[in-house]
């Protein structure tokens, strides 16, 4: 019984994010009838849905980390885009041996990716140190790397775009071997499963919520809020570094100015759309992931409608405004007060009509 009520309450939290995603998909179904078609060409699946899941992978990965950072510290990590660019710059420059464009690898790929993740880890340690030890507000603390990260990435690249034109490096961003699904999908699913297992089988999730709701109370209860915040920021930066590797593998190069540009904004948006409060505390990773795919679905479907990319933010803004207003406490209260009665009468009349027909 206890388990049942728990799952029910979980589902209730996820209703709004799922509702947003379904609305976006439904509009697509009406506007572009072939939206859900998936075709198999040259041994790989193609279609809008595959595209959404594929292109949304990086955002989903980053928003998993962002959810942890937000819930633990009640602030946002705005450096993720810059960390992704930095990690991509490190990876491509190790692979190319410092040259601008190469056709063969100068170092093993795994070593390069390891180095990229290590640089992301360093960024995470810096952010975590500022947030957890020096107790600086997260947004200000991560503003440092937000400003410097791309600068350092450009310093590493020497201000130019580094190309690694090797097929082996492209595996991370495209299909590997004869696999019909793109690799980023597998990576993002792996990240979600690992995070889910980590939160389920360790007490980290509970600790994170406790620290996010009341840091002082957590301290009195015997937890070390600093360590938990530190871990959350390291995880966030590492996942951003992983996303950076996928970004650069997709375009087999590193454009330090454009890799992960504005992804921090999208990731924060995914966290908000997932029904999480930016003030910290309770969180739902599933909600954030659904939020991330909602954003990607919106972007892809707007492209499918033929909207110029520069005009897209207006639609995005309207969707965000609508969904955050729906989730605002005042509107929720109003809906609870008057909405239930209204919906009941609407449903009753609809059912009566349907029964009559």
């Amino acid at each position, binding site marked *: 019984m206890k388990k049942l009520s728990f799952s029910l309450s979980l589902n209730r939290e996820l209703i709004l994010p799922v509702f947003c995603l379904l609305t976006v998909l439904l509009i697509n179904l009406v506007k572009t009838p072939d939206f859900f078609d998936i075709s198999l060409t040259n041994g790989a699946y193609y279609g809008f849905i595959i595209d959404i899941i594929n292109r949304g992978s990086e955002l989903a990965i980053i928003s998993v980390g962002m959810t942890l950072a937000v819930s633990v510290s009640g602030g946002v990590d705005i450096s993720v885009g810059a960390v992704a660019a930095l990690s991509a710059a490190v990876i491509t420059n190790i692979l190319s041996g410092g040259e601008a464009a190469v056709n063969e690898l100068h170092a093993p790929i795994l070593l390069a990716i390891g180095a990229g993740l290590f640089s992301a880890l360093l960024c995470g340690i810096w952010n975590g140190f500022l947030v957890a030890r020096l107790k600086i507000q997260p947004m200000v603390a991560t503003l440092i790397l937000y400003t410097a990260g*791309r600068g350092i990435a450009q310093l590493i690249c020497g201000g130019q775009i580094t190309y690694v034109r090797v097929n082996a490096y492209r595996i991370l961003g495209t299909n590997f071997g004869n696999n019909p699904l793109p690799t980023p999908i597998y990576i993002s699913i792996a990240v979600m499963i690992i995070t889910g297992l980590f939160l389920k089988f360790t007490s980290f999730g509970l600790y994170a919520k406790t620290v996010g709701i009341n840091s002082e109370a957590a301290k009195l209860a015997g937890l070390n809020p600093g360590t938990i915040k530190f871990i959350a920021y390291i995880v966030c930066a590492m996942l951003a570094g992983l996303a950076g590797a996928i970004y650069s593998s997709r375009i087999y190069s590193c454009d330090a100015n454009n890799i992960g540009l504005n992804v921090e904004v999208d990731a924060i948006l995914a966290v908000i759309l997932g029904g999480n409060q930016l003030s910290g505390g309770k969180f739902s990773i599933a909600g954030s992931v659904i939020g991330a795919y909602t954003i990607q679905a919106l972007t892809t479907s707007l492209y499918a409608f033929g909207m110029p990319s520069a005009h897209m933010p207006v639609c995005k803004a309207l969707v965000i405004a609508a969904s955050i207003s729906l989730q605002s406490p005042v509107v929720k209260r109003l809906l609870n007060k008057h909405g239930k009665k209204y919906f009941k009468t609407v449903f009753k009349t609809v059912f009566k009509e349907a029964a009559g027909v």
Partner: protein
Amino acid sequence: MSFKELKTFDINKSLISITILLFFIMYGAGMLIFGRQGFAKPQVFLNLFINNAGLIVISASMTMVMIIGGIDISVGALVAMDCMILGDLMMNRGWSAWSSMLAVVILGIIYGLTQGFMIAYLKIQPFAVTLAGMFFCRGMAAVISSEVISITNESFVNISQLRISLPLLGTLNKHGKMIYPFIYPSVIVAFAVVVLMFLMLRYTKFGRAVYAIGGNENAAMFMGLNVRRIKLLTYTLDGFLVSVGGILFCMNTMSCFSDQAKGLEMDAIAGTVIGGTLLSGGVGNVFGSLLGCMIRGTAESFISFNGSLSSWWVKITTAVLLSFFIIIQSCMLIFNNRKISC
């Protein structure tokens, strides 16, 4: 110092004194290093204000928003939209300079009112609301026009390029002629905004209420302040000031395109933080933000005077300065808390 004095150690004053000190150190270093290229000339100093007039106004507004405990990350996009509307009205629709400036300011007020309503009355986090606002403005700028409009409206050019020479600080040029440094009207507007904001925040009922709400919202409510209305007013004033800043920004660039002023919000936040305002609210000073913008501007002019450094060094320098400041701030806060608790 007696114990009582120790207890009333003012974090506000000490933070700003560090900012002032750092500005003088940086400027002095610049004079030593680039003295031969003319860094010590008064005009170089005044150029700091000319180039950053828009940013100064926007930082002043950001300071107010941050004192109340909120944040506005839509300022860069709003500036882009303002510039775009100015350019479109003057160049494509034939409006006069004054009427289009008035239109931009009124639009800014309406925009601020909307954001303020969502934040104050619907109780949505300021970050989320201004995030939506940022997308909206950036998109609208692109919807208005996707091309670069350069502004050639005669009266607008005359207003923005009107040279006001300062007869006090003249220098002799190569031919022995006395040359007076000059400023543009935008600098005067920026200064007026900073002074008015300072006076308003410090001496009016509204300003005191802003500090009170930023310090502790619940306490302010129990004191009988109308928190929602003051928040609404704050964000409306923010929309107005950012639009004024946008016009000043446009006067400096004289052109507009939809990707303009990208990242300006972070510059403004950085300037404000360097100036000693805390993001958590309740502590801050408009003059500090002015100095913060100046410090950023000095770092920028270092780069341009050196010539061989690439543009990304501006970013790295700003970040180093930021981390320096933030760490000093947090150390002082910890120090202060310890002293009070003893």
